[in-house]
């Protein structure tokens, strides 16, 4: 009797450690790399062409946009104040916005503008083209950037705030490159001077559109993506509804900003109307951000719930709630103990945040916080700073308290 040949399926399993963002085994990572290369060639070609011919006119926009980028990176970093997102993933998000989203948006926008002109005429397109093409194409590609980050580094998405942060960074990258492209185009189209053209449009875009532009739109859309990815205990309808709602909101904010002012508006009120639009956009974003921040706060209180008072007191936990309450706690420390006390409390708050991040990582890995090395180190740091804060010899008591103590 012939023996049966059993077909054995070998399962390939590997164990490997990788960095914060590099995931060579994930297909989405290679899609990301390929698209970055595409964007680099496309946008790089345009920017290089601009620099080749009008370099002297572009240094000022480059410096101004660079300064804006630094400022916004700092602000966006502050937004996510309870569990900081890794710099590598934030940089990856920014690169997507700068290279991929801009490249694809240029192609899509040009085609859609041409189509609108053919279909509805020059007058309609001149008025509504930017309001239609920009939001449709740009918000789509930017939001895909957050989606691809979820596919590559899902472990860095725990709550909606993560999506808001990464989405905002995608938007920031897009904004910087878009500003440079506008600087080039305006330099060339200015009838008198490259410098006048490039600098004027750069100042206009930074001062008028800066605070409520692409980082805001993409942040809102990114929040929806993160909600879908992380809130797995909710129904699919709810998750999809929130994601779709956030994307629609991002589209609507962008549409509002790009829409022309009504013809009946007196000319003198145009300036106020523009800033009014921007204020509406910013207020909406702050409301959405507030909701995400509250969820972050609840998470922080849960993760720190098991820690004793010498690690974090109830008052200190309350003070960690917002950036303002933290600042208030530091000011109080400065009042009681001088600048030294303020510095110590700042270090303590930072160490408590780091402990929270370590406890979260341990929880996700289903480890034991009593023995996880990074938790032990972070807790030891907190205790060490507290010991420094409580050391009587080092307390700098202010004049008023010294006088009160002397009178006792």
């Amino acid at each position, binding site marked *: 009797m012939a023996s049966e040949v059993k077909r054995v399926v070998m399962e390939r399993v590997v164990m490997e*450690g990788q960095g914060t963002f590099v995931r060579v*085994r994930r297909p989405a990572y290679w*899609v990301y790399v390929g698209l970055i290369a595409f964007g680099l060639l496309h946008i790089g070609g345009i920017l290089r062409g601009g620099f080749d011919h009008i370099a002297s006119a572009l240094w000022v926009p480059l410096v101004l946009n660079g300064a804006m980028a630094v400022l916004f990176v700092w602000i966006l970093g502050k937004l996510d104040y309870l569990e900081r997102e890794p710099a590598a993933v934030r940089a990856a998000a920014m690169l997507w916005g700068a290279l991929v989203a801009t490249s694809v948006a240029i192609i899509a926008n040009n085609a*859609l503008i041409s189509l609108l*002109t053919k279909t509805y005429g*020059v007058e309609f397109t001149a008025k509504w083209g930017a309001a239609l093409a920009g939001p449709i194409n740009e918000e789509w590609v930017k939001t895909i950037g957050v989606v691809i980050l979820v596919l590559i580094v899902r472990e860095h998405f725990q709550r909606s705030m993560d999506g808001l942060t990464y989405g905002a960074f995608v938007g920031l990258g897009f904004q910087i490159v878009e500003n440079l492209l506008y600087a080039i185009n305006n330099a060339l189209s200015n*009838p008198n001077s490259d410098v006048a053209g490039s600098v004027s449009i750069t100042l206009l875009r930074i001062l008028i559109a800066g605070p409520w532009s692409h980082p805001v739109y993409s942040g809102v859309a990114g929040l929806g993506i993160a909600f879908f990815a992380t809130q797995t205990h909710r129904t699919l309808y709810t998750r999809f509804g929130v994601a779709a709602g956030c994307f629609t909101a991002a589209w609507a904010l962008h549409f509002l900003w790009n829409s022309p002012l009504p013809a009946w508006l007196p000319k003198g009120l145009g300036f106020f109307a523009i800033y009014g639009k921007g204020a509406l956009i910013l207020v909406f974003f702050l409301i959405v951000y507030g909701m995400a921040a509250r969820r972050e706060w609840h998470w922080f209180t849960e993760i720190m719930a098991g820690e004793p008072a010498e690690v974090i007191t109830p008052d200190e936990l309350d003070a960690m709630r917002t950036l303002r309450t933290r600042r208030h706690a530091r000011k109080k420390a400065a009042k009681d103990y001088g600048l030294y006390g303020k510095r110590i409390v700042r270090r303590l708050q930072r160490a408590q945040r780091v402990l929270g991040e370590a406890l979260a990582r341990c929880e996700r890995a289903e480890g034991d916080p009593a023995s996880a090395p990074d938790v032990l180190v972070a807790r030891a740091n907190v205790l060490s700073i507290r010991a420094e804060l409580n050391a009587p010899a080092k307390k700098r008591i202010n004049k008023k308290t010294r006088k009160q103590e002397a009178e006792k």
Partner: protein
Amino acid sequence: MIEGAVQLNRFGLERGKLLPAILVLLAVFAPAVLWTQWNNSVDGELPVPDGTVYRLEAAPNPGAAGHGGVTFTVPGPGWVTDRGANKSNSVILVAGSIVVRVQAVAGVSDLKLLFDRQSRDLRVASRVMFTTGSHEYTSPGGLPGFWGDLTGDRYGGALVVVGHDGAAAVLTAAAPLGSVESQMDDITRILAGLEVRGGE
């Protein structure tokens, strides 16, 4: 650092992750492909009847204060326009082998400076053309400006900048080398009917 066991497919990539990545790749290019294909499927060529009047308004430029516009009449039959490429400040007309672009510009401080800047832009454009033989020019309608002959590797033509009161019309005409001279009458007739409106 992330460490963990991952199951691989035949390509050495994480199992079950290929399809989402492909879908994302398709999604990224979906708008570009959709609008490009749709735009290509819509015919943009539109015949322009003899005597059609075009009124162009200069696009605002933050670094150049002023507004203005250009009006001109299409001379004779046989002209078509590419609707998709037209803007509120520029129009492209084609007749036979000649392509004419007329653009309105405002906030002009010096016509010669504008002429030189336009020449530079043509020098670095995708279809490179060099300006040769430039000279002062007055249009048949009395508008002062400058005229330059354009020469490229396969195309030639003319660059004309005329205007007043801080506004200008920029006309570029291009035709295959050898047929430029025969099309000059068309350019002259367009310039004859050209009006420029300027103002602060």
